[in-house]
Each structure stands twice: as structure tokens, then as C-alpha cells.
């Protein structure tokens, strides 16, 4: 057993129990259902803004785009305008493709020894991280958007359309939402990858496992509430609408499982700005992706260059002219 994933796993279990017992045993609905979500939201927004402003204030003196294709050169050499952009239009296309399709992950390769006699180290294309990541991110996005039904009343038709698409398989009642299943499956796959692939295990820290366990717990509690244990959905919506309209509503008959779900989401919000999850904001600011490779067309001056006190040859000659003439050295100005 590896403490790098045992500690985060235990932490998520304890967090779940804190909320569950806090509500079921101590009756702290007011804290887990009203106070803590606001605290989490304030920390999330403030932390996110603080982080991004910090990055925005950092100097980016050099153009350091990663170049993944032919750069702009002579007219008869074809440029790869997206993978080695020289204009801001190319950069925009590159960023959109990176943000929506994770192209840099798509290029992921793995190193392994050949299984035949030669036993040579070889690199091959490894697509499953990209697939898992894409499935996870999009499923999570749909799940988050779907939860807006708890914060709007009446629910906008675009959200109802999304729910209709998400429930298109019409399996069982209440109808299954594909995004929830994909979210849980994809996070479990990403976790399995970290645990069973020795090379990934080696570079995985507790900070890599914690968000995975947290999101797995959030998805599992959500799925449990919808399909198995069942909750009073109308009661829950009065609570969430109360949160959205700043009025204190604690419905009766809503159990600890819901508060545990809400608490884990709040923990995710608090954890977000201080963790690797900030890649959500960071991807927009990655200098290796969002800069045009135009160093040979434009002069970029280091913003903190100061005027260097230089000693020119004229000044040198003015200083030593007489001595130079005495020594018979050639000078530009004779007097």
C-alpha cells in the first residue's frame, strides 16, 4: 500500500463522515447547508482571482511557444500556421483547439521496452490518457451545467434540452444520465492509471490523488442519491434556491447523504484555487501555448531592461588620447 493515495483516500472518507455525522448526529444542517457553501464560494472566487492576477502580473520577457510544426520561413516553405503560429489569429485557433480538444495530450507517447528479443526502448502513441481526460472533463462540465436546475426556477429551456440529450438512452426510472456514469467511469479509469501504471505511480503525489478521490466521492454520492437511496428533491431545491436568493431554508427530511455531497463539493471549491486544479485558469495563461512565434519578425524588448552605462570608444580615446599619441598608437581624432 502506498501512503500517497492512502492519506487522500482517508481524508475524503473523513470529510464525508464529518458532514454525515455532523448532520445526522449533531443536527448541524445550518452549517453544512448554509454557512459552509458560502464560505467555500467566497474562498473559491477570491482565490481564483488572486491566482490569475498574480499570473497576469508576472513578467513574460521572452517568446517561448512550444513549436510543433514548421515555422514561418521562406515563401515556398509551407508553414504550420496552427502548431507554430506567427499571428494572433493562429494563436487563437491553437488555444481553442487546446482548450476544447486537449491536443497536447493527444500527442502523448509512452516509453517501453519491446517485448521481443531485441528488447529495445521504443516510444509509441498512447491515446488513453487523452480519451479518459476528454471524457472526464466533458462529463463533469455537463454534470455542473445540469445542476443549474437547482438554482433556477423556472428552469431555462436550454438546460431542459441538455437534460433531454443527457438522458437520451431512457434507461430505467428515474432515467439514467449518461454524464454521471461517464464521469464516474472516467475518474475511476484515471485513478486506476495512476495506481497500476508503475511509471505514473512513481510521479504521483497525494495532491494528484486527492482531487480524484474527492470527485469520485462527489459523483458516487450524487449517483447514490438519484438512483438508489432517493432524496426529497423538492426539499433540496428549496434549500439550493434559498442559497441562490440569500434566504435561509433548511428543509425537513433531507438526510446526511445530501449534506455530505454538498460538503464535498464545498471542499472541492475551497481546494480548487490552491491546487493543480487551477489549470482551469492556467491553460489560458500558458506562455508556451498563447504566444505567437514571431521573434524573427518583431523585436521583443525585455521589459525590465535598464539603460546600461556604456563606455564608448570615443570616450575611451578622449580619456587616453595624449598617452596613446605618446606611445605612437593610431587615434581617430588628432586633437
Amino acid at each position, binding site marked *: 500500500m502506498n501512503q500517497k493515495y492512502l492519506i487522500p483516500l482517508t481524508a475524503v472518507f473523513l470529510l464525508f463522515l464529518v458532514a454525515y455525522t455532523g448532520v445526522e448526529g449533531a443536527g448541524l444542517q445550518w452549517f453544512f447547508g448554509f454557512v459552509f457553501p458560502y464560505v467555500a*464560494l467566497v474562498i*473559491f*472566487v477570491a482565490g*481564483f*482571482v488572486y491566482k*490569475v*492576477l498574480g*499570473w*497576469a502580473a508576472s513578467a513574460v520577457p521572452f517568446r517561448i511557444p512550444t513549436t510543433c510544426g514548421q515555422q514561418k520561413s521562406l515563401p515556398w516553405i509551407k508553414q504550420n500556421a496552427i502548431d507554430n503560429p506567427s499571428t494572433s489569429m493562429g494563436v487563437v485557433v491553437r488555444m481553442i483547439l487546446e482548450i476544447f480538444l486537449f491536443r497536447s495530450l493527444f500527442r502523448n507517447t509512452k516509453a517501453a521496452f519491446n517485448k521481443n528479443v531485441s528488447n529495445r526502448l521504443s516510444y509509441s502513441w498512447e491515446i488513453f490518457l487523452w480519451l479518459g481526460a476528454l471524457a472526464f472533463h466533458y462529463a463533469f462540465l455537463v454534470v455542473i451545467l445540469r445542476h*443549474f*436546475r437547482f*438554482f*433556477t*426556477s*423556472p*428552469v431555462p429551456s436550454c*438546460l*431542459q434540452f441538455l*437534460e*433531454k440529450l443527457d438522458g437520451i438512452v*431512457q434507461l*430505467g*426510472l*428515474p*432515467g439514467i444520465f449518461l454524464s454521471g456514469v461517464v464521469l464516474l467511469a472516467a475518474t475511476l479509469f484515471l485513478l486506476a492509471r495512476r495506481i497500476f501504471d508503475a511509471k505514473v505511480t512513481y510521479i504521483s503525489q497525494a495532491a494528484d490523488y486527492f482531487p480524484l478521490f474527492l470527485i469520485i466521492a462527489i459523483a458516487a454520492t450524487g449517483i447514490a442519491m438519484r438512483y438508489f437511496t*432517493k*432524496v*426529497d*428533491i*423538492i426539499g433540496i*431545491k*428549496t434549500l439550493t*434556491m434559498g*442559497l*441562490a*436568493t*440569500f434566504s435561509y431554508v433548511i428543509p425537513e*427530511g433531507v438526510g446526511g447523504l445530501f449534506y455530505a455531497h454538498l460538503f464535498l463539493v464545498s471542499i472541492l471549491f475551497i481546494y480548487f484555487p490552491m491546487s493543480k486544479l487551477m489549470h482551469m*485558469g492556467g491553460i*489560458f*495563461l500558458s506562455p508556451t501555448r498563447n504566444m505567437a512565434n514571431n521573434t524573427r519578425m518583431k523585436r521583443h524588448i525585455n521589459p525590465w531592461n535598464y539603460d546600461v552605462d556604456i563606455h564608448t570608444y570615443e570616450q575611451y580615446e578622449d580619456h587616453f588620447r595624449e598617452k596613446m599619441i605618446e606611445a605612437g598608437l593610431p587615434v581617430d581624432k588628432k586633437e
Partner: protein
Amino acid sequence: MTKNIILTGLGIFVLAVLSPFWFNMVTTTQAKPSPELLGKAKTEKKCVLDKYDMRANHMSLLDEWRDSVVRDADRMYTSANGKSFNMSLSTGENSCLGCHEDKAKFCDSCHTYASVRPYCWDCHTNPKEIE
């Protein structure tokens, strides 16, 4: 230049995160529904399952009923309290809608509030609508 782009993006993100709050300020918010028991249901007071079980599991029950009727032609359901019910959503006096007469005030009020759109009505009709 880049600073302005970053600040614009950050502003949009914060607005999106806080959308539940301002969305409810600029739109009128529908209040919590209170489903009404009307007509027969009001006097009968005894449903297939007890109130909380019904609230949580009515959809699963209807799912089982559908399979039972369509596959086994078994239309009788005996509940835990010993009463027998005709497994039917909308046909006759002894069906769900036979007792809960007003679909809009009984079914739809909660379903609309929670944004649940049951596909019952893709096939079934509300008997009140035909007349």
C-alpha cells in the same frame, strides 16, 4: 493589451460562477410548489404506498407496473396495506389519474419545479384532456 484580455476573461468567469445569484435577481423566481390532493384522492387518503415511499419511489413502481402489464398481463397490485389496485396510469376510476384527478396540479407541479420531464405522456394521455 494582454492585461486587458486577462481581466476581461476573469470578469466573465466570475460572472459565470456567480450566475445563480444574479440570474435569480433579474428574473422572477417561481416559488416552491405545493401539490394538491383533489377530488377522490382527498377523501380516500390511502395511496398504493405510504406518502414518503411514494414520493421517492413512484417512478420505479410505475416502471414495474408497466413491465408487469405489458409482459405478463398481470394487472392487479396488492399493496402492503392489503388493498388491491388496478395497475394503470390513466384508464378508469381505479387508476392513478382516476384518483388524482388533476394532472397539472398533482404530477406537473413538482415535475416542472424540479425540471423532470417523465416520458409517461409520450404514450399515455391525460383523460381530462380528451373530453
